């Protein structure tokens, strides 16, 4: 079995899990973007497009004393109204869902897009709207109107996902 991430099922995070496939060798070099030093505890893999992280932030974190990551979602698509952004095969959009200072927050560290609300579903709905708008706004913007860094960002987005009208 090739060592690759399957869309919508198992995330790269699973390499830290006791449930990681046994046939991935210890010396396999994962792409740098797949690494993080945050996830040192076993994860619970849910066979959908989600991965649950049933733990709190480390106690040593002084930045957000009242916060806790509820779970991390690995999305393979984001739908809002009549648009669906499909994350390219082998990749996923990692969204951290947390409860902080009385609010639920959904946040993509990769793109800096966020959504918030009074409950989980409101935060995720807000995130979906923001992400789809953000994606379409950048991708649809003519290149002549984009600054150099936004243009580079656009290329990253295009290689990450595609949009389709429903």
């Amino acid at each position, binding site marked *: 079995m090739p060592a690759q991430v399957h869309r919508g099922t198992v995330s790269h995070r699973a390499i830290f899990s006791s449930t990681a496939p046994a046939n991935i060798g210890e010396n396999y070099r994962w792409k740098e973007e797949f690494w993080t030093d945050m996830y040192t505890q076993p994860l619970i893999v849910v066979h959908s497009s989600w991965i649950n992280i049933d733990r709190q932030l480390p106690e040593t974190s002084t930045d957000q004393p009242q916060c806790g990551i509820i779970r991390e979602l690995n999305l393979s698509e984001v739908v809002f109204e009549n648009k669906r952004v499909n994350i390219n095969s082998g990749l996923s959009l990692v969204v951290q869902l947390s409860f902080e200072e009385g609010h639920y927050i959904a946040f993509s560290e990769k793109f800096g897009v966020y959504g*918030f609300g009074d409950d989980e579903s409101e935060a995720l709905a807000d995130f979906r709207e923001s992400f789809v708008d953000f994606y379409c706004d950048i991708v649809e913007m003519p290149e002549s109107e984009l600054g150099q860094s936004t243009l580079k960002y656009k290329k990253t987005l295009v290689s990450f996902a595609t949009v389709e009208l429903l």
Partner: protein
Amino acid sequence: MTDIKRDVIRKSIQKKGFRLKQGRKDKKKEKYFLYFNNKWYTHIYVKISRGNSYKTYSQSLWKRMKDILQLDTLDEVKQFLECPMSYEQYLDKLRRKNQVR
């Protein structure tokens, strides 16, 4: 870091060229986009909730705006939202990052 009043954020962003855009109306939230040189920069925005529980924005909320606003530190976000950072200073940061022309 402290909470920032929603009204302060609203006034501050409007002074920095952020405007509501027609066709982007939401009952629960106001979304302000950067408008500069007769162009909308819709990937640079601030979202403000109208809900009662959002009369002040705690750090956990406003710190999420850092990347979208193309700022580098939480201190800059705070200065941006509370107003000490001027319109010119903000545009200067965006120009240096090639975000606006």
